[in-house]
């Protein structure tokens, strides 16, 4: 290497006020970083492949004379639109929270461990902007996983069994376009508890500074709540457990639509999400960045 060449324009600038970047800019770059990492596609791949495996398995299976657990399972071969509903039912308890936790638990801790947190915190963005951008990115990823899974399940289901009318939980038959709308709405409603899981993941990621501990901690916390919900004698707390909110979308698939579970889940989830986000923000604001 020869000596560095200095460009003519290098030198101290005037002490003019710097126009600082917006949180949206930080968010866009968080998304680009996310898109550049292999780990990102592991979670999305899981979200996409499971519906395909499910449809393949159901296509090969003889459904005659089978006693199905619920109405969508009973109508699985009559409409492709039953598939995304069943997939949401299966994946909502463990798989989708796990996928969301993979990124949420890693998003601050990984940067801390790699030392890149100090790199971005010595630029012109405030800590509040950085944590906001990271939380938004983790939420975007969680939402993307949910809708990717739903989209793949819908396409695979429709490809296997057609775009036909579907029967809801209350036995009402709805047209295929209306059924598709309900699938979208159900997944959107499920985002309420899922994004709450993301908030808890971001908090653990910020507080523990350890990716593995944050991911495991987030999933472990949801499993703990799930177990608490099964313990006899604790029925009273059950409506307030985060894991109970995973089924908030069931009301949308009844006639008439039952909005109460969604309203209930909104405020219960807020009780988890708001303190978690606030704590993550405060911890991030005041923490020492000495990693890397």
């Amino acid at each position: 290497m020869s000596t560095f060449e200095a460009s003519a324009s290098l030198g101290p600038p005037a002490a003019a006020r710097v126009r600082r970047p917006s949180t949206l800019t930080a968010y866009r770059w968080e998304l680009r970083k996310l898109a550049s990492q292999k780990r990102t596609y592991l979670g999305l791949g899981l979200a996409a492949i499971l519906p395909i495996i499910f449809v393949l398995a159901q296509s090969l299976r003889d459904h005659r004379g089978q006693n199905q657990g619920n109405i969508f399972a009973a109508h699985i071969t009559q409409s492709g639109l039953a598939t995304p509903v069943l997939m949401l039912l299966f994946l909502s308890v463990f798989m989708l929270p796990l996928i969301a936790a993979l990124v949420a638990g890693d998003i601050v801790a990984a940067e801390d461990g790699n030392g890149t947190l100090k790199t971005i915190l010595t630029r012109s963005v405030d800590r509040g902007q950085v944590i906001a951008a990271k939380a938004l990115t983790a939420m975007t990823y969680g939402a993307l996983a949910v809708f990717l899974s739903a989209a793949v399940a819908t396409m695979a289901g429709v490809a296997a069994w057609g775009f036909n009318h579907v029967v809801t939980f209350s036995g009402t038959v709805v047209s295929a376009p209306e059924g598709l709308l309900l699938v979208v709405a159900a997944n959107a409603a499920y985002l309420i508890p899922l994004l709450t899981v993301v908030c808890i993941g971001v908090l653990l990621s910020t507080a523990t500074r350890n990716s593995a501990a944050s991911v495991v901690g987030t999933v472990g916390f949801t499993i703990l709540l799930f177990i608490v919900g099964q313990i006899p004698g604790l029925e009273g707390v059950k409506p307030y457990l985060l894991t109970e909110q995973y089924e908030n979308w069931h009301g949308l698939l009844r006639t008439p639509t039952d909005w109460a579970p969604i309203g209930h889940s909104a405020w219960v989830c807020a009780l988890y999400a708001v303190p978690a986000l606030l704590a993550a923000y405060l911890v991030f604001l005041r923490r020492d960045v000495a990693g890397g």
Partner: protein
Amino acid sequence: MSDAPPVRARGLVKRYKEVLAVDHIDLNVHAGDVYGFLGPNGAGKTTTLRMALGLIMPTEGKVELFGRDPIREGARALEGVAGFVEAPRFYPYLTARKNLQLLAALDGDGARTRIDEVLETVELAPRAEHRVGGYSHGMRQRLGIAAALLRAPRLLILDEPATGLDPAGMRDMRLLIRRLADSGITVLLSSHQLPEVQELCDRVAIVDTGRVVYEGALADLRRQGGAGYRLRTTDDVNALAVLRAQPGVEQAHAGEHGLSFQAQESDVGPLSIALGAAGVGIFALTPELATLEDLFFRLTEGNGAVAGATAGATTAGNGQLTEAAA
């Protein structure tokens, strides 16, 4: 804001439970300084720089960059400031250009337009499209400088920028820092490479076990270290007696290669006359200024005195060594 010094730290303390990493450090970096921040490993240099950049909270005291407190004012206090602490870190899965684009986006203010320029400056343009994960240590150091220059800084804070570089890389890094300093950028350079500091810096702070033991002009430090002289004569025994009797001459002693002593230049003229009068012929009388290395070890290892100050001396903030408070 424009009149405020680039760095001003007062009573900076950082305590990690029982460990006192930084112990009431005062720093004064003036505009245009190439300021060396010296100390052995674990002396508290990096911790101090982290506090200066707002990465960690001081336990006590405050630091201001151009009059702004990075802890209270956040990113606003870093306007016109750039640099890195410890090794510069980047996203290994992104190319150098993408890393710089990301950082430029977080800098705003036209930093994006300087990407090609800074890549050329550190000679990484041909490797700009390669992922940083495949970069050597030296290339990452250079990319760190490039990332700092994106901000068109008035103050550049560099923590051991030449660490891990090969001799050619170290030389190039020094040249680059010199050139940046010549262009008017104030440089705060943390280092334990004494030749680097001696070559580049005009003012220094020396820290040891979390405390500043000297702060001021490098030239003053060397002057306070005492002007040493080496003397070779026709009669060293007689000459030593003359030296010991001569006013203004101190620490005279005989060594393997002749005599050595300390004295001010004004006292050396009368000494040569006294030697002649005593019948001692002079083969050679050569001045030997204390090197930075000598002074550094005297200050940080407590094995000697600088200008009469005891080991463990602390600074009065004006380049003068004073008795330690503790």
